């Protein structure tokens, strides 16, 4: 009996000591985390901040990590911990939201532009306007105006701009859409070079359709055009026709306006009448990289992956539509400050430090992003990050009056987009006609407003 008891006690002690924390190492990550969560005066009077942004690949994660280390040294009195978070498919936002709900979210985090309103109106992110007003030399005009309009929107007054009394964060970077071209395929099809057409000002919907048809004629498994199934690609066709998702003050659905429908109709024809496009809903990237797609619509973030292909490729801006523009988007996301942070001033310092020209240049050198600061230096530097040769196409997109990806202050963007995504998918796959779509889309989508 005593022997047994002894054995039990020994095992219990061993088990307990197996679980015992390591000998207290000052920089153990677990330790740091606890101090970040309950910031009770970390060692040396330093303020511990955690920040997070979404990398799309391992290289990006590494660059952000090195940026974090660099800023950690640079910023006096602040200790930084970088958390990569998931990637787009790895539920970055879902996890972030859960953590906000539980109060364990980092102090500073990145969110896509469309989410700003949802986070701001729920009081989850801090209004930085007062802190910004006290910061000498800070100006909202240093960044692209599209994102800044959304980031300075004051939900109480509806005011936007420098004096609105609201500042929700600063944009990390921006991107526009381009068409990635398989130049070998285009040449084989005997199509005209879109880059030359664009330079000559002849790159419009008709020219685009002509190229797409010629490429498609090369074989049953070769497509002229490919795009992935989300609001970005189908939105450009609507924008280019002079339509768009919302009315001018973004308070109601505009998907059934004649212009929006014209854009959708043109796109639907690409899929169902001319059949030049990779079927809607299929991921177009694998066939493009397998050399089976002539023109692939995507943002700057697709560049690193495409750099590995073996054929000749380049990029060109989107073709101009009936409204005279290409209807491009200005995609952006912003660093925002957790409303529950214990150190708002330090967090604001970090947000600024993360969006300086130097840091942005570092990030965009990887090739996935375009700096969000409006400056000639930034653009000139960006143009050198080749391939693709024609980096100018991205900048042309920026200067072609793009529609800024925007939050929905008057309604729920996730609700709106879930209705819209499903119905557009039905349209592009022929489950629904354009008339059926037009008849009911807005009565359904308008439920996303005024909740």
């Amino acid at each position, binding site marked *: 009996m005593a022997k047994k008891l002894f054995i039990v006690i020994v095992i219990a002690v061993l088990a307990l000591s197996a679980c015992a924390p390591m000998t207290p190492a000052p920089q153990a990550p677990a330790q740091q985390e606890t101090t970040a969560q309950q910031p009770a005066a970390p060692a040396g009077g330093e303020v511990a901040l955690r920040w997070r942004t979404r990398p799309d690949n391992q290289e990006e994660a590494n660059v952000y990590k090195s940026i974090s280390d660099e800023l950690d040294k640079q910023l006096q009195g602040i200790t930084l911990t970088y958390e990569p978070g998931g990637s787009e498919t790895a539920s970055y936002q879902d996890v972030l939201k859960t953590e906000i709900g539980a109060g364990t979210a980092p102090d500073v985090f990145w969110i896509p532009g469309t989410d700003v309103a949802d986070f701001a109106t729920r009081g989850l992110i801090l209004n930085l306007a007062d802190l910004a007003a006290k910061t000498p030399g800070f100006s909202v005009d240093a960044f692209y105006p599209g994102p800044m309009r959304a980031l300075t929107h004051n939900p109480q007054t509806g005011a936007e701009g420098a004096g609105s009394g609201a500042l929700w964060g600063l944009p990390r970077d921006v991107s526009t859409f381009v068409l990635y071209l398989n130049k070998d395929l285009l040449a084989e099809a005997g199509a005209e070079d879109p880059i030359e057409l664009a330079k000559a000002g002849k790159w419009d919907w008709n020219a685009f359709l002509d190229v797409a048809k010629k490429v498609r004629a090369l074989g049953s498994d070769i497509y002229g055009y490919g795009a992935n199934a989300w609001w970005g690609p189908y939105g450009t066709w609507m924008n280019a026709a002079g339509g768009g998702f919302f009315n001018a003050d973004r308070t109601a659905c505009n998907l059934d306006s004649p212009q929006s429908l014209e854009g959708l109709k043109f796109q639907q024809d690409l899929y169902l009448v001319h059949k030049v496009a990779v079927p809607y809903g299929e991921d177009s990237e*694998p066939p493009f990289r397998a050399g089976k797609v002539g023109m692939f619509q995507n943002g700057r973030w697709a560049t690193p992956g495409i750099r590995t292909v073996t054929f000749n490729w380049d990029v060109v801006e989107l073709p101009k539509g009936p409204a005279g523009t290409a209807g491009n988007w200005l995609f952006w996301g912003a660093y925002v400050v957790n409303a529950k942070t214990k150190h708002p001033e330090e967090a604001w310092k970090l947000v600024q430090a993360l969006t300086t020209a130097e840091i942005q240049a570092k990030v965009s050198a990887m090739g996935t992003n375009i700096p969000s600061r409006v400056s000639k230096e930034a653009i000139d530097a960006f143009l050198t990050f080749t391939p693709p040769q024609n980096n100018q196409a991205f900048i042309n997109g920026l200067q072609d009056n793009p529609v800024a990806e925007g939050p929905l202050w008057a309604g729920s963007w996730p609700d709106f987009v879930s209705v819209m995504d499903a119905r557009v998918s039905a349209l592009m796959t022929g489950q629904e006609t354009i008339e059926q779509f037009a008849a009911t889309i807005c009565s359904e989508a308008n439920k996303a407003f005024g909740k």
Partner: protein
Amino acid sequence: MTTATLPLRKPATAAWLAVLPIWHLVVALAAAATGVILLPRLSEGLLLVPVVGLLAVAGLSAAAVPYIRRRNHRGRVLSLAVNYLGFLACAVGLLHLMGAFTGIDDLARRFGRGLPFLLLAFLGYLVQAYADHFEYYPKRQRRVQEAGKGIILVGLALFFVAIVNWPGLPALALKLLQPAHLALLALAVLFAAMFWGMWRQPTAEAMHVNNARAETLSGLLFLSPNFLGFLLFFAGPLLLSLYTSFTNWDAFGTRDWVGLDNYARLLNLTVARLSSPTQLAAEVIDVKVYDELARFTLFGRSYVVGAEDKLFWISLRNTVVFCLIAVPLSVIPALFLSNILNSRLPGMKFFRAVYFIPSVAAVVGVSLIWQWMYNSAVGWINYGITVGINLLNGAFGLDIADPKIRWLSSADTALLAVAVMVAWQTMGFNTVLFLAGLQNIPTVLYEAATVDGADAAGRFRHITLPLLAPTTVFVVTTTLIQAFQVFEPIFIMTNPPGGPNNATLSMVLYLYQNGFQRFRQGYASAIAWVLFLAIFVVTLIQFRRQRGGVAYEA
């Protein structure tokens, strides 16, 4: 008081019985005092459970005193309960404060070092198992067995040496010496001692314990680890979830009682008559509230069905359709294969192992593989179809067009594609379950039937199927319950999850979207409870239908 006057056989027991009432009085007072001190802070919400717990312990402890003095067996039950719970609370609290639970993270750091030794132990097990090959050489068998046992022991010992944090032990000891920790430790030891004092056989006899009472106590004691954990990690959260479903909780602040609003919105349907089958729904139903869900024609009249939450109904339909595809697809081949495997042909063990393989593979990993196989441009499945069609066309001079099915991106096939994958994954497990059921059917029955002239089909229908019924119920029910909760494969394989056009939106996925993407925890909880009811009803029907042969009756 008559019982108390009986002479006690041993002085130790008398001492225990003298100390215990005092102890319980102290415990009652201390618990009540702590509870009362915390009472004003009840508004902080989360303190409710510990306060109620403390007051309950105080009550129980106080109630135990007179019973013990009267040597009533109830006193023993109460005393044991209080001391047991007290011991658990102190011990777990101590472990928690000492960082034993969060320390698992650190253990993981060292665990990798120990893993090779654990594998060594596993190897030892394999050696031991190999001993069965020497069934006819007992001596050698024993030697191999002992060698295996030795390897296991050495492996485990090395494993422990490798994972224990030796340099951390002094720090651990120091930590234990902190006053709060020492106090808890002392309290735990006291509770344990008191428990033992009441538990020991002489005290039990003095407390007039009979067999039935002893059995009750043993039963509660045996059940307690499971039951307490079950209460804390299952029943408690369950009740909270039920409560949440009656609120509009958004996961951050607001948590207002809204009654049945969530359920009403979820289940709100309307039907209206249309003057023509193509009339716009907006003309007959209030599109500010309802979305058109479906339209149908009955006796020449057309109707439209509107739903306040269209997506919920779509997800319900998808889930049901998914079950209707996935369950038969996984159960019927399993039944078929198990009948072949039940024969005594050579190689059956091999095939059984092969079929079992997909069920041990991680769903996330398997989904990624199938996503790649389903790729319509470069995937193997479409390539297989293309090759097959070319063969057919070549062999018979046919002209079948290559369908180039867009498995995951077409609304027509996406759900089917996911269901096929899920069926593929669960089939092997079901096969093994069926096989087990088949092996329980006495061979005599088949022999008798053969003598009576039954043919193979007859034997299958009249012997195999009826006798396999309990297995079938079990297999179908578990597969169905799993299928009802499909989430991971859809989440991984479809883009956006639930797409295209909501064709793969399952109930759990919809719940996830509401709870974790749209800040609607209350609503998500309501969906969860509706899902639970759906599963409950389906399971009930299953069991009802097969009442006779069920082996799972309580």
